[in-house]
């Protein structure tokens, strides 16, 4: 079983090191082979909204940079974890950029989900379990709630929580999750 972890090179404080260490230990106990990937400012181009990944080179971004290998890792992992600083209740710029440029992995078409909302279908029949973990010291309650809502209100099957250094938070959250590939429902 393969786990990939994407983190922000520009926010690697003590809290981040604790988070990373704990996750590494927990995944190790579960028998995962874990790969860490870090992105910093300037490592990835910004999405240009060109839709080339849908209509010119389907499934691949037109820009050749590290995002191609990150997207390949996404598809080929059993678990994919984003570690993002919570900035204005959202992802940091580096992580948000990686999320924008994840869209080669979905199809251009619209589909209507059971709750009536619109979404694009997955390009692949099986996806990694996605876990999004926000972190930050002394975060405002509104920002923690917003970080959760951004994902939970719009995505199915994605786990999200915010870590502020609480003892045993990560093991508690992980114990309630199923690990391994999931279906294509986004």
């Amino acid at each position, binding site marked *: 079983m393969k786990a990939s972890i994407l983190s922000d090179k520009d926010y690697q404080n003590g809290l981040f090191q604790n988070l990373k260490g704990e996750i590494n230990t927990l995944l190790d106990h579960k028998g995962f082979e874990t790969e860490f990937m870090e992105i910093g400012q300037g490592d990835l181009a910004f999405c*240009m*909204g060109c839709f080339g990944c849908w*209509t010119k080179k389907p499934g691949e971004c037109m820009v050749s940079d590290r995002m191609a290998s990150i997207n390949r890792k996404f598809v080929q992992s059993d678990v994919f974890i984003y570690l993002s600083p919570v900035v204005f209740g959202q992802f940091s710029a580096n992580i948000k*950029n*990686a999320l924008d440029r994840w869209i080669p992995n979905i199809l251009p078409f619209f589909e209507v989900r059971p709750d009536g909302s619109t979404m694009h279908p997955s*390009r692949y029949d099986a996806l990694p379990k996605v876990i999004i973990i926000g972190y930050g010291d002394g975060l*405002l309650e509104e920002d923690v709630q917003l970080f959760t809502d951004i994902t939970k209100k719009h995505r199915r099957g994605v786990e999200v929580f915010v870590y502020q250094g609480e003892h045993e938070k990560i093991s508690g959250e992980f114990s309630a999750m199923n690990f391994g590939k999931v279906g294509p429902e986004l």
Partner: protein
Amino acid sequence: MKNVVLLSASPKVNEPSVSKYLAGMVGDRLDASEVEKTYIDVRQSMMKHQIQRDFEALSEADALVIVFPLYVFCMPGILTRFLEDYYKFRSENNKTASNAKVYAVVNCGFPESEINLEAVRVIRSFCRHIGANFRFGVMIGGGGMFLAAKEAPFMKKVMAKLEEALSAIAKDISGEDRGDLNDIQIAMKFPRRLYLFMGNAGWGVLARKNGLHKKDLYKKPYLLNE
């Protein structure tokens, strides 16, 4: 004289941008004799290395209108970078609370306007962090149709509603405070199923233009063993 910054943040390069168009619509409603308008396009600001100059303009603004498309349910990465760096600029330059009035105008390609809500909340949070005065947001669904169909008869009511919403921003900036600070939602008056059908058909047309067949759109390049 009030300083107003109209910030548009479409990540597109050299393509028509709904965000820029909407920022222009707000600007057109501001009286030039009372207001000094500064238009900033985030992509251009970065490409032309004008970020420091533009951060200064932002920090001196009495009002800031942030217009952007929804990307994966929140702000595009390029705008996130700009605002994150602006926050650092403020800290490094010991800027005190901004007090600027701030507005968010968000448009999305999906027909539902309410999915823009979290993006508006992010701008609200940004304002809390810089001490600015968030006023209200305008959330637009079906934004992909605006530039192509704005003159069409079925768009008349929606365009009127949009103009009203953007005028509400202009008036609020000018001092006629809008009593109601709830966000304004604007959705296409267009059958949703038809919108989705047309959208889906459009991708096949684009594929053919690029020399692909419709089935090519479903390629799975990262599948193991393919």
